[in-house]
Structure formats: structure tokens, C-alpha cells
């Protein structure tokens, strides 16, 4: 069958090369569009960074007041106000995203192991549409349930009056807080990780876990040590996607985290979790009504630019992690 002559081999090479070029061109075209978007955001964001320098990332002053001042800039371009210290937003984004991803990863790995091996057949069959449904619930609905049910519950039932009084000159604890934000965000990003992790666990060759069984290991431990380790690159990929989703989540967080540009203080103990905050993405959505005011719009773009850079770092980190993990799988590369 193989001995069909050099012409066939050449033809095969040519179709192969053509396919490669075509697919490569597709990928390059999409990359071009994305690069164009990144360039657009940075170009618009530049004045805000240029006027503030490194102090842009620091703390100082009340961010809400600074934003008001920027929005109310006089009309002369040389008088535009750009002063901004965005630390509360950066800190809140890192905090809420970080905690949600950690919680979500733990929850999704447990759920994935459950679905793959321990769930009864009927439960496994319902869990698949359940996970996909949770991934498709609009963020508006998560936000609605958050402010209609969860925030009042915390504000009226859980947070005591004394706690509210203790910080009343600095901040108000009305229930909308980083805690509610983290809870709902975790529920939003877990389905992504569960879906991808389940596929990955299922594709671990059975011979590997059978080997573990032959050594007398129980089901749970076999799955945990062998299955998870083999699926690690996929789990990391899923976690990257989930973190990116968490970074970009705007509407829901704007509704339930209280939307105050405040950096919650961990030294406050339990009160820390009830303190409100605002993330970068939520700030962009809250400020989207004022984009036509030039300095204000440029400040919003600056927030977007920071999110893009964070995603870039995230992507790089994920690539590094996966590269070292590939040797545990049978993957081609």
C-alpha cells in the first residue's frame, strides 16, 4: 500500500503543506484582530499612564473622588485632570479573583472526581446538563439573585449592628461585600473547570489506574494520585480559562460587591470579608456611561489595559506550568 511512487508522496506533501498554510493563516488572522484590539486599548489608555507614571498603581486619596474630578474636567485639553491612584481596584481584583479561583479549583476537582468515578449512573447523567446550565446562566441573573437574596441575607441577618458601627466612619457594611462576590463568582467559574477536568480525567488510560489497583490502592487514592496527576495539564488549562473569566466578570460583581473603591483590610479580622470593594472590570462597566468625556474614557481604557496585561501574564504562567507537566502524559507535544 505504501509503494505508490514518489508522485503520490509529493502530492501528499503538497496537500499537507496547503492545509498547514491555510490553518496557519486562519490562526494568524485571528491573532491580527486580537493584536489590533490590544493596540487600540493601549493607544487610548496611554494618556492616563503618561500623566500618572508609576503612581497610577499606588494608593493615595479617594479613588471615587479622583474619578469624579476626572469626569468633571474642564473643556480645555491642556487642563484635563488625570490624577489617579488605582491600588484599591487592583487589590480588590487580585483578592476576589484569587480567592474565587482557589475555591473553584478545589470544588471543581472534587466534583470532577465524583462525576468520573463515584457518582451513580443516573446522577452522572443529570450532572452533565447541570454543569453546562450553570456555565450558561447570564451574569445578570447571578447578579440579580445576589442582590435579591444573598446580599440582604448577609446585610440584615448575618452582619451584626455592632460590627457595622465599628467601621461606620470609614465604610458601610450593608451586605454587599467581597464575600458575596467571591461566593457567586466561584459558582460562575466552577462549571468551566468541571467540564474540562471531567473530559481530561476520562481520557486517562485505564491501564494506569489498573496498575495502581494491582498495587492495592483504593479507588479514591488511585484517582487522586494517578488520574489527577495525568490530567494536570488540562486542569491547569481549565484553571487559566476560569481565572480569565473571573478577571473579565463585570456586571455581576458590580452589583454584589458594593461598588466602593475601597481596599479591604485583612487586619480587620472577620469584618474583612464583609467589606465592600470594586474590581477593575466592574469599574469599567460602571464608568461606561461616561466614555465620551475624554480623560474619563482614557482612564477606563487604562483599567482595561491593565486587565489585558494581567491576562497576558496569566497565559504565560499557564504555559510554563503546562510545559513542565506534559511529560506525565502521552501527549504528542
Amino acid at each position: 500500500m505504501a509503494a505508490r511512487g514518489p508522485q503520490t508522496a509529493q502530492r501528499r506533501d503538497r496537500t499537507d503543506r496547503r492545509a498547514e498554510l491555510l490553518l496557519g493563516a486562519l490562526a494568524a488572522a485571528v491573532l491580527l484582530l486580537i493584536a489590533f484590539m490590544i493596540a487600540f486599548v493601549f493607544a487610548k489608555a496611554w494618556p492616563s499612564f503618561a500623566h500618572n507614571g508609576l503612581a497610577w498603581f499606588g494608593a493615595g486619596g479617594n479613588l471615587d473622588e479622583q474619578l469624579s474630578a476626572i469626569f468633571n474636567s474642564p473643556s480645555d485639553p491642556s487642563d484635563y485632570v488625570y490624577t489617579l491612584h488605582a491600588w484599591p481596584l487592583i487589590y480588590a481584583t487580585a483578592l476576589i479573583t484569587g480567592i474565587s479561583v482557589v475555591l473553584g479549583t478545589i470544588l471543581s476537582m472534587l466534583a470532577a472526581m465524583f462525576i468520573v468515578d463515584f457518582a451513580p449512573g443516573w446522577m452522572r447523567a443529570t450532572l452533565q446538563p447541570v454543569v453546562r446550565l450553570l456555565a450558561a446562566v447570564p451574569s445578570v441573573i447571578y447578579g440579580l439573585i445576589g442582590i435579591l437574596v444573598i446580599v440582604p441575607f448577609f446585610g440584615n441577618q448575618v452582619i451584626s449592628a455592632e460590627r457595622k458601627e465599628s467601621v461606620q466612619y470609614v465604610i458601610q457594611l450593608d451586605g454587599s461585600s467581597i464575600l458575596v462576590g467571591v461566593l457567586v463568582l466561584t459558582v460562575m467559574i466552577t462549571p468551566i473547570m468541571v467540564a474540562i477536568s471531567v473530559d481530561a480525567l476520562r481520557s486517562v488510560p485505564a491501564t494506569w489506574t489498573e496498575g495502581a489497583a494491582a498495587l492495592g490502592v483504593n479507588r479514591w487514592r488511585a484517582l487522586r494520585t494517578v488520574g489527577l496527576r495525568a490530567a494536570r495539564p488540562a486542569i491547569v488549562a481549565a484553571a487559566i480559562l476560569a481565572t480569565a473569566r473571573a478577571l473579565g466578570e463585570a456586571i455581576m460583581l458590580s452589583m454584589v460587591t458594593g461598588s466602593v473603591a475601597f481596599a479591604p483590610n485583612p487586619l480587620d479580622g472577620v469584618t474583612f470579608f464583609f467589606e465592600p470593594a470594586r474590581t477593575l472590570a466592574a469599574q469599567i462597566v460602571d464608568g461606561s456611561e461616561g466614555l465620551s468625556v475624554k480623560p474619563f474614557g482614557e482612564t477606563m481604557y487604562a483599567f482595561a489595559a491593565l486587565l489585558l496585561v494581567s491576562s497576558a501574564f496569566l497565559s504565560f504562567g499557564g504555559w510554563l506550568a503546562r510545559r513542565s507537566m506534559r511529560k506525565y502524559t502521552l501527549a504528542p507535544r
Partner: protein
Amino acid sequence: MTWKRPLAVVAAFAVGASLAVVPAAAAKPTITMSGSTSVAPLAALLAKKYIADCGGCVTFKLLQGGSDVGISDVASGRVTIGNASRDPKPTDPGGLVFNKIAHDAVCIVTNKANPLPGIDEAGVQAIFGGSVRSWSSVPGSSASGTIDTFVRTPASGTQDAFQKIFLGSTRLFSGASQKASNGLIQQSVKADPNAIGYVSLSFADGLHTVPYKGVACTERNAKSGQYGGQRNLYMVTRGPATGAAKAWLKWITKSAAAAAVVNTEWVSLQ
């Protein structure tokens, strides 16, 4: 591949089903409006009445997207009219004419469990400025505990009006929770017995409106001018309005039918 076929069928079905209710295109002048989500309900009602009154002389297209999108759209000629719920800013594009179409009363609201009998300018500035933080220090309040203040984002027209009319030069409390829409403030104040905030009159359902300087925040008081806290709603055109848009704006500001529509939840200029 076997899965391409069902995929194509589904796609064709979905697109086909959506085409089943495509209305016929019309050859009348079209007025396109885009912009503020708070002006949109008013614009939709006015448009409906206008079409009924003039016997279908124009067709309307009403989009949303926010005051900002409306202003940039009309400045570049994409739409005939931009709806804006904020006052013109010096940084807006040039050549725009802000046509006032209605007033909108801004009410101070508290939860129904805390029916504050009245508040004056000093009181508003103390509470929203953050110097008074506990309900027990507010005369007439039946609540005790920390005051939870809810305000709008800096880019909002309602916030602009509130700052100018009620607060003057007092700075807003740094810990106040910023909400992105009237509805969100309404919801937050409804759910929290210790809350106070401000909303447009049409959003005061289910809340207690606090009389300001002795005048209750009602439709009638706003119309007579007694209630001081009002903001403007605009339809923005590029240069003075011409043609169908001019007739439409004239109808809104001069006809009795339009005034009746506006006075349902807003305040007519007439």
C-alpha cells in the same frame, strides 16, 4: 462528516424561524434615536403616541446604549437624535444642541420601615457627606444603627443633578455604595431597613419618599416647581433640528397630548 448535516439543519431552522416574523419595510421618514436607558421608556411612549396622533407619518427606531453612546452617535451623524439624561459637559463634541424635553424629579428615599418625616439641606449634606453616620442622630428617624447610603456612579446624570442641587460643595461620603442604575438603588433601599438613597420619581415605588425642605416629592409638587430637586432630560441633535425631527420635537414640547404622556411619571415643561 455526519454531524455537519444536523448542524446545518438546526442553523437553517433557527434562522428561518426568526425570519417568519419579519415586518415589511416602510418608505416613510425614519427618526433614529439612541442613548440613555432612562430616557428610553419616555421616548418609546412618546413615539407611540406621536404615531397614533399623526397617522403614521414617521417610523421610529429606538436604541439604547447609554447617554454617552447617544451623544457620540448623534455627533457623528449615525442617528437623528441622541437621548441624554445628563447636562451638557464642556468636553462634549461641538455643534450639538441639547433640546430639553422634560424634567425628572429626584427624590430622597428611605426604606418603608424608616419613614423619615422630612429633611433639610443641612441634613442631606450631613448624611450624604458622611459626618452623620448613625440613624439615632437623625431627628425623626425610627431606625437605629448605622446609616447605609446609596448613590450613583460619577458618570450618571442623576448623580450630577443630586450633587449640584442637594449637596452643593459638600463632598460625597467616601464609603457610600455606588450603584449603576435607578433600579439598583431602588432595590438596595428596599432590602435594607437602614438605607437611604436618591432615585428618579418613577422609581420610588415601594419606598418612602422623604419631603425635602418641607415639600413632599410628588408629581404635583414637581410640576408646580415647589419641589426643588429636578434634573433635565434632553434630546440632542447635531445643530438645530430639521425636517421630521423638528416636527417631532415641536410636538413633544408644545402639544397637550405629549404633555399628558410626560406627566405620567415625569414632569412636562408646559
